[in-house]
């Protein structure tokens, strides 16, 4: 069975600085998708970025980028120029390419942004 591990329960970053959130996963599959979701205090889950495992190029969305290391099964999220609105819980998630459409989430990292 697939697992997703986020080993950092909490992280802090100064406003305008850069922070990296870590995520590792375990799978025997070769094709899959990876995601980072943001959950602000409103608790609405928001998709931040996605990565297809068959793509070698790391995904980027504005200030958010990932470092996808398939062999190491690592999928970290880098937030550049951190803003107060980035403060939230961040969840890493995995989905198989086909089959059951199940998504597996990590336990989350709480990001605090310091003014």
């Amino acid at each position, binding site marked *: 069975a697939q697992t997703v591990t*986020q080993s950092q329960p909490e992280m802090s970053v100064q406003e305008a600085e850069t922070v990296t959130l870590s995520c590792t996963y375990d799978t025997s599959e070769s094709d899959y*998708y990876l*995601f980072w*979701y943001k959950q602000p205090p*409103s*608790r*609405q*889950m928001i*998709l931040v970025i*996605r990565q297809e495992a068959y793509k070698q190029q790391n995904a980027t969305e504005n200030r958010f980028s990932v470092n996808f290391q398939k062999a190491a099964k690592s999928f970290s999220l880098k937030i550049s120029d951190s803003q107060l609105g980035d403060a939230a819980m961040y*969840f890493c*998630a995995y*989905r198989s390419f086909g089959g*059951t*459409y*199940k*998504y*597996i*989430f*990590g*336990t*989350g990292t709480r990001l605090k942004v310091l003014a």
Partner: protein
Amino acid sequence: SQTIHQWPATLVQPVGSPLSLECTVEGTSNPNLYWYRQAAGRGLQLLFYSVGIGQISSEVPQNLSASRPQDRQFILSSKKLLLSDSGFYLCAWSVKIPGTYEQYFGPGTRLTVT
């Protein structure tokens, strides 16, 4: 555009009482539907998912059940709530079109069992 609704937003129920949480999706057809529970300070635990009307897959044995009476309606139920059922319940949907695989979440229901 697609939207997903959940109600109620907040619920306080005594132990042993029944539960019914509803989720509806608008603007799409034949979606995959999901129920998650998020305990305080914890990640998301997948409870049920459905790929079609009447098709329910259970991920965690518990006193909860799910039903999908209509294409875009997903209901989470319990006959008798336990204290451990307290948490934040999220409904989500995804499409089956190859190449599109994001999951979209509703606003959630905060359930407190007293």
